């Protein structure tokens, strides 16, 4: 297993290399001239050209890529074209709030999703099932910004329980994480339900029940555990998306996270920031996938990884 993990980590190197090339060239392919955007609408061509040279954008793109990569290997993510600050410094304040928000969203989405899904399957076509599925469908169909604004209206403006935004205390995380987790919770609930229903029809469950095992043992220990593989896959993928996809929620809650930074940077064609963020998201995504694969073997010992 350890060998397998090491192998997977080593495999990341060529993948990241290819990803870095793609990110670099695609970022530079976006229409829009950063020098013009930095200079402002009233700038003359001379001023724009001075800025272009200063930002190194007048050099051939291969040249720029080589400079970028050699800086990257020295741990230098570059300097923001917009703020003039080192990219690593811009990440410093925003990275942890984003991570906390993601884990919190994922945490309660997993707990509630599994609970609702299991209850729905166990009480199939009874009221807990209907209630659970109505909740799940609403969670999937409500757009994040709308749910966010509704939560702000109820819990911040009317009741005054939570702040409307920011990331100053644990209270600031409640509403955004609920908003962010809603869709995933719903998806997990539906997947858990259908997967569990399928497992419950399986022969080994019937055998278990025939042997006289109690339902409280059959469901969690035998059925649920075997139903979790597809759920873990979905959860893993969603988790990867969450890390980079909280843009809308971060905007609604004026949350100082990575998603908002990415949007701001794209609007400004802030190449170094866009590149560094995309690279970071790719690494996170690959790592999450690795963790998902490892969890497979924990859930089902029949899955073994051979190196």
């Amino acid at each position, binding site marked *: 297993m350890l060998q397998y993990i090491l192998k997977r980590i080593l495999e990341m190197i060529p993948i990241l290399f290819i990803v870095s090339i793609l990110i670099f060239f695609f970022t530079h392919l976006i229409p829009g*001239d950063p020098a013009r955007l930095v200079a402002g*609408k009233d700038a003359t*061509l001379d001023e724009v050209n001075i800025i272009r040279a200063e930002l190194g954008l007048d050099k051939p793109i291969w040249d720029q890529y080589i400079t970028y990569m050699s800086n990257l290997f020295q741990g230098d993510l570059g300097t923001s074209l917009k703020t003039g600050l080192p990219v690593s410094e811009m990440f410093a304040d*925003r990275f942890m709030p984003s991570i906390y928000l993601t884990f919190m969203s994922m945490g309660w989405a997993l707990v509630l999703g599994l609970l609702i899904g299991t209850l729905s399957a166990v009480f199939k076509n009874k009221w807990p099932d209907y209630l659970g599925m109505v909740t799940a469908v609403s969670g999937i169909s409500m757009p994040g910004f709308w749910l966010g604004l509704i939560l702000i209206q109820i819990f*911040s403006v009317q009741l005054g329980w939570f702040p409307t935004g920011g990331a100053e205390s644990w209270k600031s995380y409640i509403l955004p994480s609920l908003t962010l987790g809603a869709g995933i919770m719903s998806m997990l609930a539906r997947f858990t339900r259908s997967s569990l229903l399928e497992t419950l029809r399986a022969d080994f469950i019937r055998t278990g029940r025939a042997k006289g095992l109690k339902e409280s043992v059959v469901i969690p220990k035998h059925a649920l555990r075997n139903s979790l593989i597809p759920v873990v896959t979905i959860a893993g993928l969603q988790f990867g998306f969450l890390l980079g996809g909280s843009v809308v929620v971060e905007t609604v809650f004026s949350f100082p*996270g990575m998603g908002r930074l990415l949007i701001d940077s794209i609007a400004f064609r802030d190449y170094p920031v866009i590149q560094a963020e995309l690279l970071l998201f790719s690494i996170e995504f690959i790592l999450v996938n690795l963790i998902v694969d490892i969890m497979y073997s924990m859930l089902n010992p029949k899955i073994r990884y051979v190196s």
Partner: protein
Amino acid sequence: MRRVNVWKMLFVVFVSLVLMAGCSSKESGTDEKESSGSSSSSNEEELVIAVNENFISMDPHNTGDTNSNSVQTAMFEGLLGSDEEGQIIPQLAEEYSVSDNALEYSFKLRQGVTFHDGEPFNAEAVKTSFERIMKDESLRLNSRGFNLITSIDVIDDYQIKVTLKEPYAGMLTRFVSAKILSPKLINDSSGDIGKTPVGTGPFKFVEWVQGDHLTVERFDDYWDKADRVKKITYKPVPENGSRVAMLKTGEAHVIYPAPVQNLKELESNTDVEIHKIPSTIARYVSINTMKEPYDDVRIRQAINYAVNKEAFISVVNSGYGLPLDSIIPSKTQFYSKQETYDHNIEKAKELMKEAGFEDGFNAEIWGNTNSDTLKGMQFIQQQLKEIGITVEIKSMEEGTLSDEIYGAQTPEEAKVQMWYVSWSAYPSDTTNATKPLFSSSSFPPDGANTAYYKNDDVDKWITEVNQTADPDKQAEIYSNIQSAIYKDAPWIFLGVDEILAGSRSNVEGVFISPTGGINVTDANLK
């Protein structure tokens, strides 16, 4: 099975670590919250201002955006400042004068002023700051004007004279923007200026958490001893609804801008006040005067007669705004009102007929993807239909649009027909409100004359007006410029924005200038 258990344990450890990390952050977060007391009810000594965008830089010599500027005005001052109307007033200079040939600027400095780090303010300090702007190549955005300086003469500790090599009409406004930094900061650590700003302003820098907030606190040795609030926190809150919610809960004392769609609701709230400020933001559609059939002035005038400006303000701007009755907004210096193109379909049709386009033609209008822009373009589309012009709307993301506009190297290459856009200049800088937009030397990519407007008289006047320091003469020339261009109609003259801000009713002394800058010099909470 044993192997699985090991992994199970590892998983449990991993989850607990994550949870612990989460909890520890919660705890530290709670403490911070309690000590800072950001809730308005628990601590009235802190003013919270929510704005719509992030701050970009705290280096005042390298700032182009209004929000960063707003925050900087709390910490820094220039030799000159601007009042509520945006007009120039003395600030760190008590008096100033300009020579007749518009080349020499003399300042008498205020005495007894100190920087936040204890350094004294004097002529040497001014010289150090100005030299930084002139010489530091990375300060590309603010060197305009300062690159014309030939000498800075320190006459004595509190008198300084700046000489230019050629006249530049926007120079006084540049002295407003050129904030004076502590010379110690400039000499010691030029790399950190954006992170550790030190000026002479009424508030001194405390902390800046990227994307979250920036805090300043009262500077007790400030030269003007008026009573002011102890602490101000600026927060970027891009979502309109969230900003409104913050104002309603009292989490923010001032929000700028206040979204139009929430105004009614806010106005009915007794704890909240709404401020409407006529701005210097001109909204217009530039018409490519070199392209057929727009090269015919009658077509451009017909288009202007066909568009109902009042309806524009009420439909697109929800009733907040003023008609654009010159080429510059009324808050701009040397503004002179013109006879407007009132809504007159008959006259428009007549002009179309005279120009040989009785049956109309197909046109294209460009704009960015902003929902307000789209609404504006749809309005124009609907209005021009009345006179037979079928308008196709092309909305493009800002960067793409900028490429399309500035990618054309010559007027012949330009594909733009009509561009729905806005322009904002400092109220005191009429040059910036005219030259980049109407001088034939400003065709893209060299400037923003996207109407490709060329009028020899106007070109001559724009040069002339920059060569004199006599305000009467300037007023006369600017009056000619405005009337000539307005008649030539290179734009659809739509409106001037009223900027909207909201504040809690206990806020005093905070004002928003016509450019959207927030001034907190006398900010206080009742």
